[in-house]
């Protein structure tokens, strides 16, 4: 959306879903594993996004063999993609299994997506430990992966009531630079229902928050939004929501 040529790869082998979220599930012919195995070339497998000319999706395979992603194969595909794209986004599955390890191994930057919830924060800390020790950069003693925090499903109202971890608490525990806070929003489910990424919802809070995240990642210095409770206008107050 900012004009950078970008490719996004679904690393969740066996549980392909990025195509569904991006609304291109009916255009999947070849997948990531096909490309690794040489059964298709990248141009055949990459799906061009209908809404954004510079965005391409490489879907995950539905195979049950989770070791279908070999380190050497993933490296080869990423190398080829980096010749043609400015940004290659590796969408990692949750957890610390093979798919996640492969998604992070070759990374330069990592965006850790966390909910303000104890299990999610703890898992993120584990993942940070793995990023710092098991990545290619770590193994080659290069400059470490740059890590950013993205806090989603945030509810300022619940934070005020003391029912939810504050963004500052999560930041402090994980010791990360905050890339953005995405508020809990109905628009997210609506977006996934219809296969239209929520960032395209330019009116909604979640969409704006994601756009902020992109701009901050690209180096813009924007103030953080959606951390405080937004005051309803007088009409809103009188007539409920």
């Amino acid at each position: 959306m900012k004009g950078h040529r970008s490719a996004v790869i679904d690393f969740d082998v066996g549980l392909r879903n990025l195509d569904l979220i991006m609304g291109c599930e009916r255009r999947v012919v070849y997948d990531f594993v096909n490309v690794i195995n040489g059964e298709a070339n990248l141009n055949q497998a990459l799906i061009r996004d209908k809404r954004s000319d510079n965005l391409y999706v490489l879907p995950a395979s539905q195979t049950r063999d989770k070791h279908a992603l070999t380190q050497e194969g993933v490296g080869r595909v990423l190398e080829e993609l980096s010749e043609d794209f400015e940004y290659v986004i590796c969408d990692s599955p949750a957890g610390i299994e093979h798919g996640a390890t492969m998604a992070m191994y070759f990374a330069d930057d990592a965006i850790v997506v966390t909910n303000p919830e104890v299990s999610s924060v703890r898992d993120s800390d584990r993942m940070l430990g793995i990023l710092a020790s098991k990545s290619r950069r770590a193994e080659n003693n290069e400059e470490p992966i740059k890590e950013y925090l993205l806090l989603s499903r945030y509810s300022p109202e619940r934070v005020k009531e003391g029912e939810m971890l504050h963004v500052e608490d999560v930041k402090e525990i994980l010791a990360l630079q905050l890339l953005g806070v995405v508020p809990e929003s109905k628009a997210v489910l609506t977006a996934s229902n219809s296969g239209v990424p929520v960032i395209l919802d330019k009116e909604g809070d979640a969409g704006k928050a994601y756009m902020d995240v992109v701009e901050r990642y690209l180096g813009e210095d924007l103030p953080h939004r959606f951390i405080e409770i937004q005051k309803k206008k007088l009409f809103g107050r009188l007539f409920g929501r």
Partner: protein
Amino acid sequence: MGFLDYFRATPKSGKSATLAKERLQILVSHDRLEANSPSYLPKMKEELIEVIRKYVDVDQDAVSVKLEQKGSREMLELNVVLPD
């Protein structure tokens, strides 16, 4: 529950976020320590306990081995509870 309780602000349960933060801080520092400990530690623990048991008749769980880190100093703490 007394009649007046109905008028009180949200009771203690409203402070669960503080609890979450405290639990996480303890847990995360513990996890990090464990993740950073050398891989030979469990095996060493096992063998240490075995040696002690060779000379003193103690239970397996009467021996605890802990590796602590304070700044740049690492400390191996061995705690044996001797039988009476």
